[in-house]
């Protein structure tokens, strides 16, 4: 297939599937809490709505950063789709994209001048200290497989079996990372916790919010895609979809049943999980 068509197709799939997965997550959470919950396509409807709403800019905002940062957020996750499903490129590049995602969270929060955004920005710095070690799971994958190329990791699993059985603690770390990036009432997502309204998104309206919502959907899809690819190997599109729905429903249940942790507890939980995961995985690799 033509590369450009491949990219467009994959980005569209990532956005649509990611949006619907958010709907499923909210539905699961609502049913656990004995509420009917929003329609499954709610995230999609919200995204469309924001694109036809008036875009207003706070007088206090740092221009043009305040505007451009939403486009950068979208661009880096489109790049992630190109590195992941389209070209099956290096995992280290996905690591870099995730690091830039943290910067974007930081700047989207601070550039508006809102105290809620500012708190989210400071929390982004705190949480980066915990989320990056969780993302270090990719280094463990490298130590096990000897490669950072997604295509070769898939080939390795075809020969040696799925990595989830060899590196279960690394999979646990990655699940913790996915929970921390879960957008609806996650116990670990302190940058979007409801005590600071909508965190770094609070002061972005109209089309800018639309870009952020597109990015959220693609981010969610990509995190699940990376998890399934590096721990289960080559899957058919249907199996990817089933895997993503199961993971989203499980994380929805976790979010519905757990309190939202305060920043210190959240960061310490993530650092503890990262420590157990990294040390445990290395011990398992060399001694089991």
């Amino acid at each position, binding site marked *: 297939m033509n590369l450009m068509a491949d990219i467009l197709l994959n980005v569209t799939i990532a956005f649509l599937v990611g949006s619907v997965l958010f709907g499923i997550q909210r539905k699961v959470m609502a049913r656990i809490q004995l509420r009917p919950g929003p329609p499954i396509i709610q995230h999609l409807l919200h995204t469309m709505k924001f694109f036809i709403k008036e875009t207003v800019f706070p007088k206090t905002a740092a221009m043009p950063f305040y505007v451009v940062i939403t486009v950068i957020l979208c661009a880096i996750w489109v790049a992630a789709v190109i590195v992941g499903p389209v070209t099956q490129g290096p995992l280290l590049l996905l690591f870099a994209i995730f690091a830039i995602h943290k910067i974007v969270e*930081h700047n989207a929060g601070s550039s508006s001048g809102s105290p809620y955004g500012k708190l989210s920005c400071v929390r982004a710095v705190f949480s980066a200290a915990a989320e990056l070690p969780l993302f270090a799971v990719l280094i463990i994958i490298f130590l096990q497989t000897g490669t950072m190329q997604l295509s070769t990791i898939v080939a390795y699993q075809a020969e040696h079996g799925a990595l989830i059985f060899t590196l279960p603690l690394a999979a646990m770390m990655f699940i913790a990372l996915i929970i921390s990036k879960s957008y609806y009432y996650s116990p670990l997502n302190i940058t979007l916790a409801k005590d600071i309204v909508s965190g770094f998104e609070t002061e972005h309206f109209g089309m800018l919010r639309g870009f952020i919502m597109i990015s959220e959907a693609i981010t969610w899809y990509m995190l699940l895609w990376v998890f399934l690819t590096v721990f289960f190997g080559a899957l058919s599109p249907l199996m990817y979809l089933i895997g993503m729905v199961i993971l989203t429903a499980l994380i929805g249940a976790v979010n519905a049943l757990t309190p939202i942790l305060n920043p210190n507890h959240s960061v310490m939980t993530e650092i503890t999980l990262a420590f157990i995961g990294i040390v445990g995985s290395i011990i398992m690799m060399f001694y089991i």
Partner: protein
Amino acid sequence: MDITTLGGQLLGIIPLGDIVLYVTTFNLFMFAAALVFTVLIAMSKTEKQVEAEFGTLNDREKKVGKDEFKVRRFLSIICGLATAGAMITGDLFNFTLFVTLIGIVNIGIVSAVKEVDVLDSAFQYGIIAMLATLPLFGGAALILAATGTLSMFEIVNIPSTAMMIFGSILLFIGVAGESGVAPFFATKAEMFRTAGSPFLVIIHLSSLLVIVRAIEVILLISKPF
């Protein structure tokens, strides 16, 4: 193991004597990201922090003064360029120099702010950054002594020894201290409470990008495969 194992496709090399700069997909992406943010910082205004004043109906506004703005913007641009340099360099000594420069200008970016908490945090970070120069340069020196070169393009072809692995561990400790990431992040987080969003973002950006590049550098030196 070669450079493409970690960074993806090798797009080109720039031979400068024994220092060979190389460009992989990974390096190019990080370099471009650092430059894009630097350009945005150079042209961006700062935000105004507005908060409700406790006990009255007034607002409290914090903004960056003109003189402070000029100094901080200059240092932020230097920081952005140093970060871009650290992303693309193929020379270990240049990498350590860029990382040290990032540490120095990060302190400079917030040292013009007249807030006690922010200055305290910058002071503590400065102490950590100064201490971290010892393992940073020590690690690079050990690797030079063990391999006879500082070119990463050459080092990647030399089988790793215990001294190279020890050097790379020291290097990582040095980079973690210089960039103020975990476990040193607690010294740095308060620095972000002040106004001046575009300048603060480069502090965070430089730390995270340098850590990601350091992972590539350390894996290239220690070569677990």
